[in-house]
């Protein structure tokens, strides 16, 4: 099993978030969580699948908490005319 790069503070009992989930936006994570709940509510999932879904749900919940707990706001600025001319806001490098 390949290990993701270690973070010094992540040495807890919690498994790390899957890379895909760790990148989800709050809204996308909530949406997936609601989908899982809906599938489970339909009652068609067996135990094995339920547990898999639950584990995924747990990851999604933790991702959402992570988002809510992030303390620093990303604020970028640009002059209106520069934006119009195709410029990028200062420090805007994480556009998806």
């Amino acid at each position, binding site marked *: 099993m390949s290990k993701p790069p270690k973070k010094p503070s992540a040495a807890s009992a919690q498994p790390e978030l899957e890379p895909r989930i760790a990148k989800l936006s709050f809204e996308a994570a909530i949406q997936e969580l609601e989908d899982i709940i809906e599938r489970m509510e339909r009652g068609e999932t067996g135990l094995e699948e339920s547990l898999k879904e639950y584990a995924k749900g747990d990851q999604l919940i933790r991702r959402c908490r992570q988002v809510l707990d992030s303390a620093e706001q990303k604020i970028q600025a640009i002059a*209106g*005319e520069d934006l119009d001319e195709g410029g990028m806001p200062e420090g805007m490098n994480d556009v998806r």
Partner: protein
Amino acid sequence: MPRNSSDPLISGSGLFDAPQGNAPAPPTAPPPTASAPPPLTVTEACARVRSSLDQLGTISVVGEISNFSARNHWYFSVKDSNAVLNCVMWERATHHARVEPANGMEVVVTGRLTYYPPAARTQLVVESIERRGVGGLQQRFEELCRQLRAEGYFAEERKRDLPALPRRVAVVTSRKGAALQDVLRTARMRAPFVGVVVVEVPVQGEGSAAQVARAIRAVDRRASELAIDAIIVTRGGGSLEDLWAFNERVVADAVFACRTPVVAAIGHEVDVTIIELVADRRASTPTQAAMLLFPDASQLAEQLDHLAHRIATLANKSVRESLQQLAALQLHLKRAPLARLDRAARQLAELCTAFERLRPAAQHALANHGLQALRAQLARALQQRYRRSAEALQVSARQLQALGPRQVLLRGYSLTLDSRGTPLRRAADAPVGSHVTTHLAQGALSSTVTESHTNSTSLPAP
């Protein structure tokens, strides 16, 4: 005494020539010689000055401010080239004033004239003050309002809902203004995880309307590229002229065409600008605008708690059913130690272990976030799930008993055990090189595993 009856400030002030004046004495009576009215006291005379000034009602005077002094109340004069009029504006009235008076400013003051006897002072008690020429702006505002309303710019049905949780919010405003600080403070307090793009524009002065309009169009055009889900256009308080950029048609057009939802908060609550009428939502202050778009993190946390509770309840149900199956299985194993049942038991035991492995992680996560209820439910769930599954398993156990293992083997299935005699369920359980025994309907085969296909899942029917 010369009279200028066209001047409202002078006409009607015929106090000291009362007998010949237009009021209140009989107009043409000659001065009676024998019974001349007794002279007035000064107080009485001044009271008459007062009451005749009262009769003028509310008047508007245009002039230039001088001697302005602001304590709690505003004291100043208005003057033209020939005359000076003292003015006072009581504190209560100054709160509604939209201009900050300054000496030399041309204004229109509206109020009532009074006479203050102790100082022999006639003054205008000002109720409202406006810069001269603002009347023209007011007219333009009303005219544009009429046009835009007729064109459907203000129609409620074209206004869109604001996103519940925007990824980024663009704030179109001046970088230096207090409005931006209010928005940023509110955003930080409520939702630091929502990004902010500050789009700087001049918010007053020549050309500002065109710049604001251009910025709104640019944000809208690049909204998906920059993950911007909503726009705030805001500016702090100011005079009607200061706010004028937001009353221009070019800005109204930009907001009208904008596909990204717009919240506008311009000036103080009493000021209404055209952009606010066209925007999807109007906010009375920059802070309120931010509150509309930056969701409260604590409310989101509540929503999340609710979902966490639901998924835990559902997992409970699943686990409860499996626990029930296991209990029944154990019972049947004692009575009928059939290979198939043993296999099923192992399967369930593995699922249990899987859940046990999961549980500490889940519990850790829950403890971290104080979801005590969820934790308790998980524990309860473990027992309940298994109890319920037992019932389902009981049925299949009975069917299996009726069938018997030999019947199964006769139908062409075989049973493979590893070297310890444990039935094999997955190819991965028998590593290459290990020895296995396969029981057939008649006899058994001993083999060594030479190849393992872990991915093939289903068998063809025999």
